[in-house]
């Protein structure tokens, strides 16, 4: 039997009911990679926040989880992608407390603090892609 290399898990995000599954899948992969309990929690929290942004602003979207490797270290890459309205001012969106939905405005800047690497690309009218990586210690 051929071995299956599972290095990408995709969780469609359509409603808040999908957030728990996204967190769970992230948690499972993190544990499989040997992440500490703390890092697993930080990762699951970051996934919850970026997936929640999709639910709030840009449904449908998806969370893609990839195992990545760089310089002998393994990590988990989280990609939150949607074809929603896009973010007109990314710098503004990355400020603590800025929200367009009477929320707390902590999701994007907060997720950046929870992860090791963070990138966001967005185009108004086309969509947004947030890419984050947490490395196993």
């Amino acid at each position, binding site marked *: 039997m051929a071995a299956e290399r599972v290095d990408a898990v995709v969780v469609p995000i359509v409603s*808040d*009911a999908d*957030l*728990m599954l996204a*967190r*769970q899948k992230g*948690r499972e992969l993190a544990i499989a990679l040997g992440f500490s*309990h*703390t890092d*697993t*929690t*930080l990762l*699951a*929290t970051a996934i*919850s*926040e970026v997936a*929640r942004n999709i639910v709030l602003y840009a449904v449908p979207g998806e969370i893609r989880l990839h195992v990545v490797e760089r310089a002998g270290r393994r990590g988990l890459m989280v990609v939150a992608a949607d074809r929603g309205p896009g973010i007109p001012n990314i710098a503004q969106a990355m400020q*603590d407390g800025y929200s367009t939905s009477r*929320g*707390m405005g*902590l*999701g994007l*800047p*907060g*997720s950046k*603090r*929870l992860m090791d690497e963070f990138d966001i690309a967005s185009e108004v009218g086309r969509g947004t892609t947030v890419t984050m990586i947490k490395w196993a210690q």
Partner: protein
Amino acid sequence: MQVPILRQGDFLIASIQGALTDADLMQLREHLVQSVRRFRSRGVVIDVTVLDVMDSFAARTLRSIANMTRLLGARTVVVGIQPEIAFSMVQLGLTLEGTLTSLDLDDGLALLKSADKKRQRHSDGS
């Protein structure tokens, strides 16, 4: 998944059993508020020891539980926040303003009882 709510005299204890969806959290809020009214509870303990993550929605919902139950005359204390959850909350910038927090169930109940005594003294005018 419904969160079980136990009644201990004047207090209610809600013990979260595992991962909660948004709908579960909102149902907990509804259930707690109704129970405070029904049992004339003076305090609510929410035990989050086993909660998987505290994200912005969970924090916001816990705060609204505290606000709503306070309008009905009860205080809310959140107990059992795990160190890694506390760390992620601080990193995210989440607070639980409006709720009391305690380390565990025993401490939480003790806190509610002493807060209750203070309130009763004040209302006696002494």
